[in-house]
């Protein structure tokens, strides 16, 4: 299962955990699993999140692959100038 790191203000929606483990082979599957397991996270996910998977920042791609041992960091949706 991928390890998903939540930023502090998201942790109260996941029973205070900093890292949660969920199943998913893509970023989209990880999002869906998070929203299922921790419904409090659903609004944040719906509002749009970016992620970093094993160091690579993925601004907005549900199809980006996630391996079973991946480290995933949730980030605020990034925008640029």
């Amino acid at each position: 299962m991928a390890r998903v790191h939540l930023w502090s203000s998201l942790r109260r929606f996941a029973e205070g955990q900093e890292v949660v483990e969920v199943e998913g082979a893509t970023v989209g599957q990880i999002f869906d699993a998070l929203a299922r397991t921790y419904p409090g996270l659903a609004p944040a996910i719906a509002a749009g999140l970016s992620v970093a998977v094993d160091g690579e920042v993925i601004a907005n791609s549900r199809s980006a692959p996630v391996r079973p041992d991946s480290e995933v960091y949730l980030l605020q949706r990034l925008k640029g100038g």
Partner: protein
Amino acid sequence: MAKDEITKGYKLVGTRPNRPDGLDKVTGRARYGADFSLPGMLWAAVVRSPHAHAKIKRIDATKALALDGVKAVVTRADLPTGLEGEDLNLQENTLAGEKALYDGHAVAAVAATSALLAQDAARLIEVEYEVIPHVTDVDAAMQPGAPVIREGAADYSVPEGMHPNVVRHMEFGHGDVVAGFAAADIVREETYKTEATHQGYIEPHACVGQMGEDGRGEMWVCTQGHWYIRRMCAAVLGIEAANLRVTPSEIGGGFGGKTTIFMEPLALALSKKAGGRPVKLVMSRAEVLRATGPTASASMDVKIGMKKDGTVTAGQVMFRMQGGAFVGMSPIGEALPCAFACYDIPALKHEAVEVLTNRPKAAAYRAPGSPMAAFAVESLMDEMCRELGLDPIDVRLKNAAKEGSKSSYGPVYNRIGLVETLEAAKAHPNYAIPLGPNQGRGVASGFWFNHGGETSVSLAIGEDGTVQVSIGTPDIGGSRASIALMTAETLGIPYENVRVNVVETGALGVNEPTHGSRATFASGKAAVEAARQAIKEMCRRAAAEWEIEPEAVEWKDGAAQPAGPNAGKFPPMTIAEIGAKMGGTGGPISGHHETNAGGVGASFGTHVVDVEVDPETGRTTVLRYLVVQDAGTAIHPAYVEGQYQGGAAQGIGWALNEEYVYGADGRLQNTVFLDYRIPVASDLPMIDTVIVEVPNPGHPYGVRGVGETGITPPLPALAGAVAAAAGVRLRSLPMSPPKVLAAIKAARQA
């Protein structure tokens, strides 16, 4: 997609050919937003609120509509209801609903047969306001008595008990900051403030919109992203995206400010009401400054723990940012990760809140959030270096993030080039030039993520072997040239044989705007993929002609060639020969690539600036300026330098003189370039550049993206230089002469 092996020895990449749009731009032929007209076209003008915060009681357009030649007036009542989230934000900003939320907020729009008539008509539209209390300062907006701008606007992230104007909250970090600060030899905590600044593109927003009674429309517009224009206009007007065809004009600067809509739906709504006649809407400079852009203003607490040798043991920030009267517009989500991104620090805590104020809806501005964050963190780093008597570059080298470092925002960095920029800055002659009296030197580093994003590119081989590339990212800084270089390099043909066109929304799949330093990276990457696809097809055509297996054909020097001795002996078949025959060998040859481009390489830079401060007037003169930045690979070095120099110039303006000045009445005081003081030619020295090239493994030619990082270091670098020159540390931008002189006087009296 597999990561490509980085190779050197390119034929075209790294050269400096003339840009394809150069001739049109030096002869006045290039067509920008306001340069387009259509038969039967009307002109529009917008009525804007003179109040920072007011209930709109009544709008009466009777007198305006009574003028001969006035064809239509639109107000919020003409727009659909029921929108939510950012769509509602966009609609609310396009035309105020129940309340005007800032000075300059659009209230109504009118279309007439001439620009002057439209302006006359706008003056005749009567709006009755009930002025209510306002707040424009980020800190004041959080105070208990501050007027509430929008009840219940806070999103899920805001903990209970905060002022209703606090609408977003964010917090993250790693390690044990308490232990980190305990392990430090010195711990310093300071508060920094930056004022809002405007992107300051010289071309005001302009568009021509046409929409029929059937809801089908067209738009010509200056924008960084026409698919965003399409999506946002469709949302605001309640029409289907596919029914709106948007063509981008040449763009007269954007810097993030043209990634969104401000008045474009008005042209369409007016057109529809005026029986489908096209409507031109061009903003004045005052409208641009009052109602578009700007970036956020910020109030920031920073705490850093440092050992005597310069090792940073812990860092902590609390940022308060306002992005106007609209939720989600301040760049707290970018500012926080950027704050300590340059460093490998064992313990970090980041926290930020977004606060609503009665100011315009902020838009992205070059590395949104990063310059403010850098001003706070890099300034305090500099203060601590000076306190400990340490060289600022050495301290940065000691703490610098590198490949394998855990970034401040979580993920581990792959190959990055911060150390290389620091070393190059230290080795540069500018760093050793002796300084005179009242002169000082400042150093700072900066970071930007860079971005890939949704990208669609198509490429077609011509009958003569020349190539057209259709891209969807408007060219602001020379990206057509860099994409042509990469395409030509991949195909093995001359640069001049590739023409890159920015095409309309009907011609490609969805493209994100030119933002996040992504055009050369993402459209370039997609163009290379499209070229490879076309190469594959051209090899197949050659193979068929030669009656050998396609795998036995390779592409080299712009021609299909038999691969190896077993493929048979055939003379190379050039792209021109293949193109000439393609009608008979299977039809048109093209390549296309659609992706949400990954493989982004983070960008770092280090700046060194020398200034002289007049101790009697507080005026700062920039004596020399050095930008060192990692480009990954510089595809067209002249335009890479241009990005570095332009970013530095904008940062210098932000640091020294640019600011939004609001009166006690909540009105913007400086609505013209006379008083919104962007740097003029005589304000600046030549801006020296060093292009560091640590290729990005995620791009076929190693591109990182160079557009944004350059605006980040100038703010703290200038503050450090002024501190060294005048002996006073300014923790509030801009460092305008009155502020600097007041600080010098206070220091003398102390």
